[in-house]
């Protein structure tokens, strides 16, 4: 109720229906306006880049981690717990950690100096508030690798190793076992988890707000700036932009539901 | 002791076929009555109606002539023990047994004492502090029974009480239910799909097909006087010979048979496998056959015979001793007049 109502209200406002400033007529001006702005398209490009880069990288890393954590080793329980620990940690804290780690006077820069690679903070590559959103992507990877990894690990444990052993006895090499047995088995959970991650990375606000540049900024940050702008006339545009994000996310949910259903049935 | 009476009881489900309509049955006090029928016959619906877990669309349900239709389940005094035991896994055995007393506000010491006493009756003394997961299926079943009995219900309702047990536990449980039921003199209704379970437990059986009462009587009636071929088949009848009654003889494609029951509209005669005997010479009610198959069944032998005059007619007989006849040899079977059931 709260959710659907909120979205409907946002929709009405994106059409310029804003009784507070005396606007009660409907128009498509806001939508037309955002699609004409180069800043919107640049933001969209950046947001898509952040979404895809963090999803792909954290998915690959998560599979590697899960395969590793599945094996037997001393301290397995503790490490697995540590791996899950990240999931409830708020993103903001991760962002602060990344900031203190990656900034030009951060811990990594200091270690680089110790290793004799740089002499001055300015020589350290810009990794936060940077053009390629590396800080943002790093934060998402840090957090979402654990998320996807935990799900993949749970799947691997419930599937067991019988199929891989059967494949091995049929002559499959290590790589073949992974490619033709393990990967198809974990694919359903990997796909669904990574869609969730993409939708989140596409729409989240806090991380690009803390670790991103002012221009171009992620779509959510752009929407927020338009919303809080002293010029109330920009509000319909803010609504239109958040709805655009919501629309993309909704597409993601549909994809998620179809995929998880289809893959479950197999 | 409580008489349970169902009068024109109707419960229909719009979507599924599990309905009972205008059901009438008087369940005698202090005895075990089985509601027997295949799945979907409406027997579980009836049990839940008596328990108060379902309410009927129409009709009346009385305990000792007092209507209980509007009495909620917890005040009805008809306790049901479910098929899967449903021993609460988060409670100990003792807490499980005392559950009903706790709900009634019985003091802790009293209900613990009563739980201990009843656990002794079901041969589980000393099990109070165990967790249900530590018990075997048979032990859980006894906990479930004790938990129902401890509340001293007017009516005890048992849903398939033996179906999850293996052969030797079945016998133990049967004896336990019987002895407890007699000791408590409690009106008991057993629901089952298994005719054997009904026969060994019940004083009388109500056989249901498609939500209707098909036959009601003592267990032996269902073997000796089934009302239809369907009943006979449900009780393990396998030998059916088609024909019709001509005066006092039943006319079939393999000859005439004299019968003791002259039912005019009859279309079949039937005989139980154990009643078929070998004959030495052709007399009344004999039949020429060839042995098709002989199987040792552990405690008896089973023979399948093919009628000489009608190769599609196969009869089955059983015998505790091995007959000295080899497969495809001829023989003469005698179907005694007094054992022939006319359907």
């Amino acid at each position, binding site marked *: 109720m709260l959710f659907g109502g909120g979205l409907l209200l946002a929709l009405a406002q994106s059409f310029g229906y804003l009784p507070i400033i005396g606007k009660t007529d409907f128009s498509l001006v806001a939508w037309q306006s955002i699609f004409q702005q180069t800043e919107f398209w640049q933001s969209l490009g950046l947001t898509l880049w952040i979404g895809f880069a963090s999803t792909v990288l954290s998915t690959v890393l998560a599979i590697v981690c899960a395969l590793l954590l599945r094996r037997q080793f001393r301290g397995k329980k503790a490490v697995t717990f540590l791996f899950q620990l990240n999931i409830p940690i708020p993103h903001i804290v991760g962002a602060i950690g990344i900031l203190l780690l990656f900034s030009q006077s951060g811990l990594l820069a200091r270690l680089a100096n110790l290793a004799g690679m740089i002499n001055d903070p300015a020589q350290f590559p810009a990794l936060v508030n940077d053009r390629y959103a590396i800080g943002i992507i790093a934060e998402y990877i840090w957090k979402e690798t*654990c998320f996807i990894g935990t799900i993949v690990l*749970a799947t691997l444990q419930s599937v067991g190793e019988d199929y891989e052993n059967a494949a091995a006895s049929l002559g499959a090499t290590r790589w073949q076992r992974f490619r033709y047995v393990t990967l198809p088995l974990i694919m359903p959970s990997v796909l669904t988890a990574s869609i969730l991650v993409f939708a989140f990375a596409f729409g989240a606000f806090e991380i690009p707000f803390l670790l991103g540049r002012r221009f171009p900024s992620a779509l959510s940050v752009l929407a927020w700036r338009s919303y809080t702008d002293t010029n109330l006339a920009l509000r319909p545009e803010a609504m239109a932009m958040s709805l655009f994000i919501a629309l993309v996310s909704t597409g993601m949910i549909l994809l998620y539901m179809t995929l998880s259903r289809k893959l479950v049935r197999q | 002791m409580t008489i349970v009476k169902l009068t024109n009881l109707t419960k229909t489900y719009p979507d599924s076929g599990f309905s009972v309509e205008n059901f009438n049955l008087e369940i005698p006090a202090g005895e075990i009555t089985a509601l027997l029928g295949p799945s979907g016959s409406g027997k579980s619906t009836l049990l839940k109606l008596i328990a108060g877990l379902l309410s009927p669309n129409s009709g009346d349900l009385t305990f000792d002539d007092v209507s209980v239709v509007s009495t909620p389940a917890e005040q009805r005094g008809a306790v049901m023990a479910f098929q899967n035991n449903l021993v609460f896994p988060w409670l100990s055995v003792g807490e499980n047994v005392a559950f009903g007393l706790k709900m009634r506000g019985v003091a802790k010491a009293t209900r613990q004492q009563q739980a201990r006493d009843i656990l002794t009756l079901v041969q589980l003394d000393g099990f109070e502090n165990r967790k249900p997961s530590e018990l075997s299926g048979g032990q859980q079943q006894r906990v479930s029974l004790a938990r129902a009995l401890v509340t001293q219900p007017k009516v005890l309702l048992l849903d398939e009480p033996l179906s999850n047990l293996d052969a030797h536990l079945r016998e133990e449980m049967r004896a336990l239910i019987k002895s407890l039921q007699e000791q408590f003199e409690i009106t008991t209704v057993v629901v089952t799909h298994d005719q054997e379970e009904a026969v060994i437990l019940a004083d009388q059986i109500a056989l249901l097909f498609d939500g209707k009462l098909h036959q009601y009587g003592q267990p032996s009636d269902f073997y000796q006087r089934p009302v239809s071929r369907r009943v006979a088949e449900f009780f393990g009848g396998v030998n059916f010979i088609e024909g019709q009654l001509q005066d006092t003889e039943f006319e079939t494609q393999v000859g005439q048979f004299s019968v003791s029951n002259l039912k005019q509209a009859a279309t079949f005669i039937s005989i139980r496998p154990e009643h078929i005997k070998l004959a030495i010479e052709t007399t009344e009610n004999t039949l020429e056959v060839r042995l098709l198959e002989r199987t040792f069944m552990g405690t008896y032998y089973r023979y399948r015979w093919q009628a000489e005059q009608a190769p599609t007619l196969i009869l089955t007989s059983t015998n505790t001793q091995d007959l000295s006849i080899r497969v495809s040899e001829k023989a003469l079977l005698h179907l005694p007049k007094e054992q022939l059931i006319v359907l």
Partner: protein
Amino acid sequence: MKRLTKYAGVALIVLGVLAPFIPILIWSFARRWYFPAVLPTEWSIRGWAYAFSSASRLPQALWQSLLISGVTSLLSILIGLPAGRALGLHKFRGKTLVEFLMLAPTIVPAFAVAMGIHVVFIRLGLADTMIGVILVHLVPTLPYVTLVLAGMFANYDVNYEAQARSLGATPLQTIWYVLLPSIYPGLIVAGMFAFIISWSQYILTLLIGGGRVLTLPLLLFSFASSGDNNVTAALSIIFIAPAIVLLIISARYLTGRNVSLARGN
């Protein structure tokens, strides 16, 4: 050699997970830590002392955060329990649609909703109030709680309730003695993660609370942007403490499905 790679890999994972926490932990105890020193040249507890002093407004933020998250998770469970039961136990027409509607708020960014709602909340006088903030926090927590409990109810045998009723339990007693003991693992997980989701909200609180309602993430954000690393680091550690405590408590009830929904924000 194989063993070595394995342990190296595990070490890398541990390092990767812990990496962002290392500078946070050091900074919270640092006094002088100028580039290029790898460790602080001078240590102090100034960050912690300041964080706990009234000047930082931590007590106020901590109290409001606890209250908002506590009430939010309680409300989520009260509403989500019957909803999850209906969703988990019954098959009905349009169930897929309901599932879709439930999933939507877990993926669609809540601020899109909050921006739309804001106007109405202003009109109703809910903007800038704690009640308004709690209501808007329900947008992301409620579907989560409902889905977790629906999963719990999918494996729940309603016959236990019938059995209890038959043994003489009233409807209320049935809820207390049968329903709650059966689903409490789900209740714990759902409640805790509702708490964490609410605890981590920044933009929803900022938008609806309008700065009048101060929660821990808002305080943390303002220190983070002011560049006071000592206090920011100390606050970060205070901020993640409940998450860690709750994870430890709920770890044994966690399953893959729960995790897939339990994403901090």
